[in-house]
């Protein structure tokens, strides 16, 4: 453990290191690499949800000016990874087989990509695509979760491994709920939600040689993409390059390699040109995953004085018929509160829809809507303040893993959140507070997410001008990864942030996992720290070897830069970097360092926590809800970049407003087709929906979790926001809305 690290200067708010590039348009996104001889592909999607393709009439499209190829299962080249049949490589793996685009005539979901029209311009490809005529053999599809709930099943992973997080879980007595003094039982529904990042999913596929592939691809993992396409095309990994320098938001839909990517690669091979493929907004609803519609039921039992006795929590989430997508919907129910008796039942329901994928706060955000609504319902029935009820059931260790927490500072969050939202104005009885005609309500919801960490490697070089240049394959989907890493390096070395550069987003750089699961600062941050320390050790050795006695017993932690001068233990070491490099006749020093999770993970339970407070106004006659204020409190360990971290929280709260009030991908089950599938019909919050959002960080390091002390932030920013708003609506109106979103029609 590296305690000394935190004795140094604290982290200050810093503007994004790439902010100027982004706002001036200089940042290059995946679709913005102007390769010579580019061709453009447009995908045609199926118009049925289940069946087979009878025929495809491509004549008109092929004859259209500028069209280079019309590619479907009829004429697509063989993808080596599709053979032998059955296994299509994919990381992270889902149970089942990802859709093999242009493989056969089978239709598994509506708007499944079935044809690519490739042309010399986007417009010509679009026109070509409009001319493709497809005939189908239609079969009866099933897309309705509630109507098919009886067919829900235990995931294969749980069947094979009873320790799988999706396996059935029981703690304590099975009849505890039945025997509880106070009981509530309720069902909750979260509709299908779409990630809808601003940047559309885009890829440029470029075969630089027959066996050498470069993709400029909007993904959340360059190494994942490199590995997947190397397997898919039977190439050595070093022959596949993935460039993802900038990502305009992703929220999870870049955590998988999708059929449109393979479609572009096939097309590039067939037309022997680089091929650019950008999904349309409508295709973003059907081809790159979504948060699955999920039904939940909670039974909660407590004593009259507010001690939880039992929680039984079950859920059914939808998946496709070809892959089993699972998420941690019920995990927090096992560990959040000191209930002696807990049972969880996680089920999935395969439907004729495309495969879902993790969406910000995956699973936990869905489960938190159930659990935190139920906590509010129980507090109301008992007649307790919902915060007091939670404090009465606070747990000082993890009752699920039966391990101590690495750190948990939720009490600080309750206190600060109460103060900032004005909780003292809340009345226990709903409907008691008014502002003019509007009903006023206060609510809160808790969130948690594992403080995940994976191994990561950073290359760092320090040159004689004092510039520190680092490289890592990690992507940045918007949280400000480069900024955070620059701040960690600056803090560790004393080198000013403007002299530090962090290059990311290429599979050519040293290994890193996905930017997902709130793991980037926890994983890459320690590698940055480790690389900085290794550079400092090199300098110490160099200085000592040249007879500078002060360095003889110095350690990396003792050494800092003050401008170009080296300092040991805060005092001048009477030498500069330039001198040292000159004495040793070198231009730069460099190192590559890997940092990995350690054995603390087997001894401690590691979670980040959040608590969201909402004040709402509800109009009693029109049913309109206006969120007037949100306070986000987070126990996320060390906050290495206060400004971008606060932005993360604000963005998460905004997403939570969407979950609570507006977002709903509505499907017409007669056709198995979405009807709200553009930004006009699928409502995400606009500025007018987003109030003042206040952010509070406990900002205490968790050095058991990782040497930076960070526990991750991206997910907990949204987890718990939707129930906070739903609970506030209940407090305002006395109406409990258990199916999101809370639109005006549900409140009148």
């Amino acid at each position, binding site marked *: 453990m590296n305690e000394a690290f935190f004795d140094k200067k604290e982290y200050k708010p810093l503007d994004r290191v790439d902010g100027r590039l982004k706002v001036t348009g200089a940042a290059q996104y995946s679709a913005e690499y102007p390769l010579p001889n580019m061709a453009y592909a447009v995908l045609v999607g199926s118009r049925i949800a289940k069946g087979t393709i009878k025929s495809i009439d491509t004549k008109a499209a092929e004859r259209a000016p500028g069209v280079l190829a019309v590619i479907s299962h009829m004429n697509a080249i063989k993808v080596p990874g599709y053979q032998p049949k059955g296994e299509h490589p994919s990381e992270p793996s889902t149970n089942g087989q990802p859709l093999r685009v242009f493989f056969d005539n089978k239709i598994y979901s509506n708007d499944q990509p079935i044809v690519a029209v490739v042309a010399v311009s986007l417009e010509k490809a679009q026109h070509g695509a409009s001319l493709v005529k497809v005939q189908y053999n239609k079969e009866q599809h099933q897309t309705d979760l509630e109507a098919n709930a009886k067919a829900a099943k235990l995931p294969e992973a749980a069947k094979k491994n009873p320790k799988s997080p999706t396996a059935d879980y029981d703690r304590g007595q099975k009849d505890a709920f039945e025997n509880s003094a106070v009981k509530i039982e309720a069902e909750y529904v979260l509709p299908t939600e779409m990630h809808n990042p601003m940047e559309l999913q885009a890829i440029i596929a470029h075969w630089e040689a027959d066996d050498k592939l470069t993709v400029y691809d909007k993904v959340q993992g360059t190494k994942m993409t490199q590995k997947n396409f190397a397997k898919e095309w039977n190439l050595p990994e070093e022959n596949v390059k993935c460039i993802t320098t900038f990502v305009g938001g992703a929220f999870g839909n870049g955590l998988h390699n999708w059929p449109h990517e393979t479609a572009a690669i096939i097309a590039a091979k067939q037309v022997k040109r680089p091929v650019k493929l950008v999904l349309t907004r409508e295709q973003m609803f059907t081809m790159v995953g979504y948060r699955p519609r999920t039904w939940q039921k909670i039974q909660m039992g407590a004593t009259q004085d507010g001690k939880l006795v039992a929680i039984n929590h079950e859920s059914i989430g939808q998946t496709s018929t070809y892959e089993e997508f699972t998420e941690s919907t019920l995990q927090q129910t096992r560990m959040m509160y000191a209930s002696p008796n807990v049972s969880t039942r996680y089920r999935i329901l395969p439907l004729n829809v495309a495969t879902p994928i993790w969406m910000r706060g995956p699973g936990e955000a869905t489960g938190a809507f159930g659990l935190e609504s139920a906590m509010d319902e129980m507090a109301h029935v008992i007649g307790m303040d919902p915060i007091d009820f939670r404090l009465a059931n606070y747990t000082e260790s993890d009752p699920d893993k039966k391990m101590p927490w690495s750190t948990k500072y939720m009490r600080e969050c309750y206190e600060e959140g109460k103060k900032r939202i004005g909780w003292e104005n809340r009345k226990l009885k709903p409907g008691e507070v008014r502002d003019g005609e509007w009903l006023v309500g206060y609510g809160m919801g808790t969130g948690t997410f594992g403080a995940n960490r994976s191994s990561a490697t950073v290359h760092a070089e320090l040159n004689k001008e004092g510039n520190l240049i680092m490289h890592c394959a990690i992507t940045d989907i918007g949280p400000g990864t480069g900024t955070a890493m620059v701040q960690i390096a600056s803090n560790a070395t004393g080198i000013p942030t403007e002299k530090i550069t962090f290059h990311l987003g290429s599979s050519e750089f040293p290994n890193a996992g996905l930017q997902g699961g709130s793991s980037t600062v926890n994983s890459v941050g320690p590698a940055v720290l480790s690389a900085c320390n290794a550079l400092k050790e090199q300098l110490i050795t160099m200085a000592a070897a040249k007879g500078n006695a002060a360095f003889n017993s110095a350690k990396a932690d003792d050494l800092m830069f003050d401008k170009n001068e080296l300092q040991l233990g805060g005092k001048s070491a009477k030498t500069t970097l330039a001198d040292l490099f000159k004495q040793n006749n070198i231009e730069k020093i460099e190192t590559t360092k890997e940092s990995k999770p350690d054995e603390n993970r087997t001894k401690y339970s590691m979670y980040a926590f959040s608590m969201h407070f909402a004040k709402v106004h509800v109009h009693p006659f029109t049913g309109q809800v206006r969120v007037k204020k949100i306070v986000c409190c987070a126990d996320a360990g060390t906050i290495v970049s206060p400004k971008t971290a606060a932005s993360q929280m604000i963005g998460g709260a905004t997403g939570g407003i969407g979950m609570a009030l*507006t977002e709903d991908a509505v499907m017409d089950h007669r056709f198995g087709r979405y009807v*709200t599938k553009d930004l006009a019909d699928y409502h995400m919050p606009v500025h007018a929906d987003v109030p003042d959002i206040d952010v509070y960080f406990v900002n205490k390091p968790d050095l058991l979790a990782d040497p930076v002390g960070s526990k991750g932030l991206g997910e907990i920013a949204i987890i718990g926001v939707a129930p906070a708003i739903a609970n506030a609506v209940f407090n305002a109106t006395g109406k409990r809305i258990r199916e999101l979103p809370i639109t005006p029609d549900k409140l009148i």
Partner: protein
Amino acid sequence: MIQFQYERAATTKAAVSALVNSSNAKFIAGGTNLVDLMKRNITAPTKLVDINQVPLKDIQQQNGKISIGALALNSRVAEHKLIIEKHPLLSQALNAGASPQIRNMATVGGNMMQRTRCHYFYDTALPCNKREPGSGCGALEGLNRMHAVFGTSEQCIAVHPSDMCVALVALDATVLVAGPKGERRIPFEEFHRLPGKQPEKDNTLQNNEMIVSVEIPDNAFSKNSHYMKVRDRASYAFALVSVAAALNMDGKIIKEARLAMGGVAHKPWRLKEAEKALIGKTASEETFRQAAEIAMQGAKAYKYNAFKLKLGPNVIVEALKNAADLV
């Protein structure tokens, strides 16, 4: 590529004659709806006549009325001194629609000519009699939460999406149109039509006619009017229900009333019976509730829009309360 001709017209006369002898030609001004429709293969005009240079942008006081040129931008009208002063209802309604960017492009004529936002109209994989006569109505037994409760037919239950038009129909506006045979005036209430057996027809404009201006007669409603729009988010969403309410008050007594609803019919829906019920009455929540009940007579709900039968009268009451300063 789908080929189409593009030409510019600088006068009303030139614009109208550019349509004559050209099947499926369309005017384009702001293009905020038409371009979307073309991109989605919902409409494919053979010719676009750009009328942005026709001098029809003026907003002026004439004898007993205000005339607004068909090409006046939505944002200009909403912010115009004369409109704010004399017809604040219209200004409010305009500002309740779309987004500032769209209002900066969209024209008054274009706003009137915009097509429905029915989901089924916009997806060429789904049935829609308005887009493809005879293909069926997807919404009738489908997802019809946004759909009409007044004046529907078995052929179509779509709503007209405009806010501006709801205010204009309440304000007794008249539409001045020009055609090959000269000009004519259409009462605003008769400009848009009900779907009946021809849902593909949104309005009563004849072939080769062009909207020249909208005229609003002077009235005594400027002190007591209100446009209330209830929607799924605070801005940039179409109305679940909207109400334009205008009162001419003598103390607390209602001398004249105008009421219209949006989000409930294939056209901006004027509520004349409810208006009558308000005349001579004292402004109160009870009076307004009675008028709202009358307003909703004949409303017919479908599977997902029954809430409009309850929301509708509530919004009427709230709009009237705001108009009468009872809030």
